[in-house]
């Protein structure tokens, strides 16, 4: 259900201990620290493996996250903005990552550009509450989604490199 590479990636990033949502006060701070540590580790691992594929930052409360992600297809870099809110029921409910600019371009998406995660992501997440966090959502949710959808969209001609180029250029 999860490919070997993903499993390996998951194994290398730390799991969370604190079960707390944004409304849990001090515990949320604790949880947020863990989230950051996990993300730092995850990003470091990615960079070590020459597999950096996103930028992420949050508001001060850590409830709203935004950034970029990119996918390289046939030596071309396709970059997209991403954003998501931490749900009130987090970490029981997984965050819904959205790529607004692709809204309406693919069937694998809810209104507002929220990506439609695979059938097994949700049960997997549910099994791993509270151990999984934002990092895991990125690795298990967005990563595989991009890998499947972007080449498909490019092939269909829904997205072309030309319109992404400017976006990519300003970042790199």
């Amino acid at each position: 259900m999860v490919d070997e590479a993903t499993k390996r990636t998951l194994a290398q990033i730390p799991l969370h201990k604190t079960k707390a949502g944004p409304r849990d006060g001090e515990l949320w701070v604790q949880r947020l620290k863990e989230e950051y540590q996990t993300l730092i580790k995850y990003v470091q691992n990615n960079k070590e493996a020459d597999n950096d594929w996103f930028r992420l930052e949050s508001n001060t409360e850590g409830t709203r996250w935004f950034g970029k992600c990119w996918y390289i297809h046939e030596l071309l870099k396709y970059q997209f903005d991403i954003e998501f809110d931490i749900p009130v029921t987090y970490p029981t409910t997984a965050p819904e990552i959205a790529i607004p600019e692709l809204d309406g371009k693919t069937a694998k998406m809810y209104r507002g550009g929220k990506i439609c995660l695979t059938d097994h992501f949700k049960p997997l997440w549910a099994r791993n509450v509270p151990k999984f966090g934002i990092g895991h959502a990125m690795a298990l949710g967005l990563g595989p989604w991009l890998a499947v959808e972007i080449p498909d969209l490019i092939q269909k001609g829904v997205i072309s490199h030309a319109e992404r180029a400017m976006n990519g250029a300003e970042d790199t």
Partner: protein
Amino acid sequence: MADWEEVKRLAADFQRAQLSSTKQKLSERNVIEIVSKLIGLKLIEVVYTLDGKEYLTPQELAKEIKEELFVHGGRINLVELQQILNVDFSHVESKVTEIIKHDKNLTLVLGQLIDKSYLDRFAEELYDLPADFLSENVHERLGSVIKGQVDSYDNDVIFTEAFVARTRARIRGAFSAITRPTAVMAILSQYDFQERLFYSILEELNGYLEYDAMNRLGITDPKGFIKKRYKSEKPIFLSTCCSGRAIQDQIEASVEEALSTGAWTDIMPLVPTIFSTSDVNQLLTNCVSGNHEAVVCCDTMVVSRKFISNCNKPFASLMADKAEKDAKKNVSILSTQGGKGSHVKLSGMDDGSSGRDDKKEGRKKKVATCTKSGGGTQGREVKMKSTKKKYRARDQDDDSDDGGAQAIPKGREPELEFMSIDEITAVLRTEKDLEECPEEMLTEIATTLQRPLNREYQEVAKSIFLQSAGVATGRLVEKHTVNCRRKSTALTNAILFEKGIKQSLGDSSSSGEAPTEDSVHRSDEHGGQCYKATDHMVSLAEDTQLTSEGRAKVINRFQKKKKNWRVSKPNLTWCVIRTPGVPLKKPDKKKEGK
């Protein structure tokens, strides 16, 4: 709110982590492809290591050379450098020469890269040490640390081995270039050779020293001088000169070659003309001593044992042929009372080998008596039996005549010679392999071969002879019985005839007697003759129908030798009985009665 601060800090850390440069990772395969592409495009230049696992740019190579030089204290051998850097020697060498060009502090001496700092330190170390002390220490280390030799006349001069070798090579070159007589001094001055070294090397190159020549040079004790001068060389002192290692080596090599190929070689052309034959012989003996494979011939030649044994080959067939012939002749030899034997002796005397032959005869006699006394192998026994039978036959002869007349000693055959040395030489000369051999060598080989050949031949001849004798004995027995039967019938007949004659004498005429007697006589006689003939091993064809003339001849022959054969006889009965060696049954009375 310390926790929020911490969150902020972590957020900042996270951003930093995200912004840090990604480690560019290329697989080894990709890198190799990229580099080979770059090399192909001539964008970079690389030097491969010997194992092919790494490459480095020339700049890196230069850097590494300098680093290694520093690590090794300012002095490093290029070969060592090559091993450390694991780069092809040519690259190291060319790079080093390049570096030296640019860097005045570096020098390349005898394949060693030396830094100026090293020389400085070296000089500092030697500074203010007294010369005596230095030379003493240098001498102490000669032959071990310092590879060189001290000039025996001037202790302050040391020749390194490299220098000596170089000088030797130059001298060799100079001398091989000489096409006309040239004064040694001219060469000496032209090439600027060290005079003493020059002479000693020249002598060395020649490989030998003539005592006379040394005397002329003013050396009164040549042998002593040589001993002192060439301690390690182990020269061989000969009668007129002293041979060096080079000549010995040369001789050894050619001897070895001759031995390994199973051939022969003459050493004479290999040594300088000044060497006398005895010198060469001395050298050669020295060389082959302890080597059982080699035989020295004619002083200067070496023949391998294999070669000699190869020489034996052509004789095998000759031997068989001759033995076959001789075996036949031998029969007559035996019966004609050793006439041939004495002849052989005479021819044997030509080369003075009769003494040996005599000795061998004596030995043989001993062997023969031993056999008689009952010892020996199965083969021997067979032999013994056959001889015994022969003896019996002859003994019976002796009984019947005056005996003792036989000149051949009993129990042995006459000495047989296969070939004379001259004959062997002649055969050898026709051999292809021996075409080039000088006459003396052939003779010497022939001499070596003669004895074993003779011995072998005698064996062969004996075995062939005994074989034929064995067959003859068999036939003899058969004939004997036939004869006995014939005789007894003849006897019975004779008696019957006699009786008949006596009875009829009174009334019939005497004319009947003659034919009867004659017929009895003839039938008996023929049998007797055949029998006798085989007995004496005169080759008479069995079925030969003898005419009365032929019969007379044979009888004559027997009569000459043995007086027991009577042709004239008083009466018939007597004649039959007197035929020797035939046991007679008593005449059958029953048959007589008829």
